[in-house]
């Protein structure tokens, strides 16, 4: 129930206002995330909001009795707020919450770097040669893997799920190890954690094709994510083998083999300047390969060594946005199977509120090196200040707590006045951390990172909001204005 003794009304400070065409309006308070669509009558609704400012609910009702239902809707969607209604976090509150004892988690994902070596030489590799042991024989032992898995299971509540992600480097270089880890989990670990679930996932370039790959993947219900950066000629420029040989043919052969065996393979493309104009073509290529999902991720402009990507490889955020929106509208992939749309729509679920850009500060996604060291993020592996655990010592939450505070959207200087901040959580913090941590300046990379975190995210969320509005209007049939299918050309971000 909404409290009717509100005092003077005001429009939420977290108001996202989108406009389309001549008369449409979308209003969202990102703190409460209850989007509201004005199919017609934009000026009337904006006029009502202006009139409401500073008036009591009762006074507004007296002036606009015919609009009582609209006022109620604006209240229910948290667009119109009373004097004491909550709209942000304050510093003490953020710090107090971070300092609370860690609660058992529902879900975790542990990233096991089973090796830091790789057989490819991607042009945008996140693994810096100083911080990752890319050429050394870095191999995780089964004991380290199992101990790390147990450490995560200890942090789960009964009924919770741990996703064990085999990661690298290229994890299939250590296929025998992966199988041994799974065997021990199934034969030993499950007995000790019978009330918790373990799921397995592998992120691999799939250039290796061990004979029992399908059997093991199927037996253990493993999910698979691989990378195809475009049709062969594009992919081979982006993701060659070490030494420069093309890799697409081998990856594609393994993907087809898995797909033919009924295994779902998600395919991802890292967008750089080399493939930014081939997004539609690449999405079609993913489909032709039999992928279950297709994803497009703008390249991260900094690696684990805090080296910036060469300027000539940085894509243009505007072109990425245009191509992705074009792809989304083409219907080639459904929303549920196309990243970023399938995951960004989750940010718009009513009541969602994102206070950091990713799960890393919560400790839900630890990254384990071959020696058992625990890091906040794969981009931060090898940087001592982001290591928060070892194999032999309890994981130290202080880094997580500090990160939770410093990366909270109400603490980040560029975010805390932005109305979108609770929708995006501030975006990927890697660039922010690199800048804070004394990485040499790269103005173009920094601007690119800012635009991906801000403009890209806003554009995807905007597209999703308008698409939802258009679908709803279509469902309501005659009597409501029909969708014009016009591009989102008069969008403003307040």
């Amino acid at each position, binding site marked *: 129930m909404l409290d009717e003794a509100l005092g003077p009304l005001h429009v939420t400070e977290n108001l996202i206002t989108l406009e389309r065409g001549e008369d449409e309006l979308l209003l969202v308070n990102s703190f409460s995330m209850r989007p509201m669509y004005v199919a017609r009558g934009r000026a009337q609704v904006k006029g009502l909001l202006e009139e409401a400012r500073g008036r009591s609910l009762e006074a507004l009702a007296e002036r606009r009795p015919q609009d009582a239902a609209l006022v109620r809707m604006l209240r229910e969607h948290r667009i119109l707020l009373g004097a004491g209604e909550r709209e942000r976090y304050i510093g003490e509150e953020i710090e107090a919450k971070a300092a609370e004892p860690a609660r058992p988690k529902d879900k975790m994902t542990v990233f096991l770097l089973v090796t830091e070596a790789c057989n490819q030489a991607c042009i945008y590799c996140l693994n810096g040669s100083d911080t990752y042991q890319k050429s050394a024989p870095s191999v995780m032992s089964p004991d380290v893997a199992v101990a790390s898995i147990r450490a995560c299971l200890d942090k789960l509540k009964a009924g919770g799920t741990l996703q064990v992600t085999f990661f690298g480097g290229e994890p299939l270089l250590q296929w025998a190890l992966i199988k041994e880890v799974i065997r021990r989990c199934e034969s030993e670990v499950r007995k000790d954690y019978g009330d918790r679930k373990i799921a397995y996932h592998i992120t691999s370039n799939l250039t290796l094709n061990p004979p029992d790959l399908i059997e093991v993947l199927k037996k253990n219900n493993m999910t698979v994510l691989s990378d195809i950066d475009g049709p062969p000629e594009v992919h081979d420029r982006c993701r060659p083998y070490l030494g420069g040989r093309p890799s697409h043919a081998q990856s594609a052969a393994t993907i087809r083999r898995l797909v033919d065996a009924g295994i779902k393979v998600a395919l991802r493309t890292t967008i750089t300047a080399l493939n930014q104009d081939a997004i539609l073509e690449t999405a079609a290529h993913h489909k032709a390969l039999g992928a279950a999902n297709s994803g497009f991720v703008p390249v991260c402009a900094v690696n684990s060594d805090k080296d910036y990507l060469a300027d000539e490889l940085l894509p243009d955020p505007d072109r990425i946005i245009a191509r992705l929106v074009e792809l989304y509208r083409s219907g080639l992939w459904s929303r549920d199977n196309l990243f970023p749309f399938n995951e960004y*729509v989750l*940010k718009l679920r009513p009541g969602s509120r994102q206070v950091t850009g990713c799960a890393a500060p*919560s400790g839900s996604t630890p990254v384990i090196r071959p020696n058992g060291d625990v890091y906040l993020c794969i981009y931060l592996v090898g940087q001592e200040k982001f290591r928060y655990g070892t194999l032999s010592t309890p994981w130290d939450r202080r880094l997580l707590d500090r990160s939770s505070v410093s990366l909270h959207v109400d603490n980040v200087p560029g975010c805390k006045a932005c109305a979108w901040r609770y929708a995006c959580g501030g975006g990927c913090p890697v660039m922010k951390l690199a800048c804070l941590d004394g990485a040499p300046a790269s103005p173009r990379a920094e601007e690119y990172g800012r635009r991906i975190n801000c403009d890209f995210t806003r554009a995807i969320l905007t597209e999703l909001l308008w698409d939802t509005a258009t679908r709803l*209007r279509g469902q309501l049939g005659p009597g409501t204005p029909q969708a014009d299918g016009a591009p989102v050309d008069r969008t403003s971000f307040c």
Partner: protein
Amino acid sequence: MYTTENTESQGAHLVVEGDGYTVMSLCDNLSMATEDVLWSDGSCCACPDYTTVPCAC
């Protein structure tokens, strides 16, 4: 500290027609979004960016 917080239950489907305006809630439609995506870590802390970084090289 949780990255994503669920703050309230969803509202009912709602359309308000007035003199000169039609206003609709998108809450019902957006609450149908599912988490059944392969590259989500499914975490209670939504982590779309982290699990999709270019990482397989």
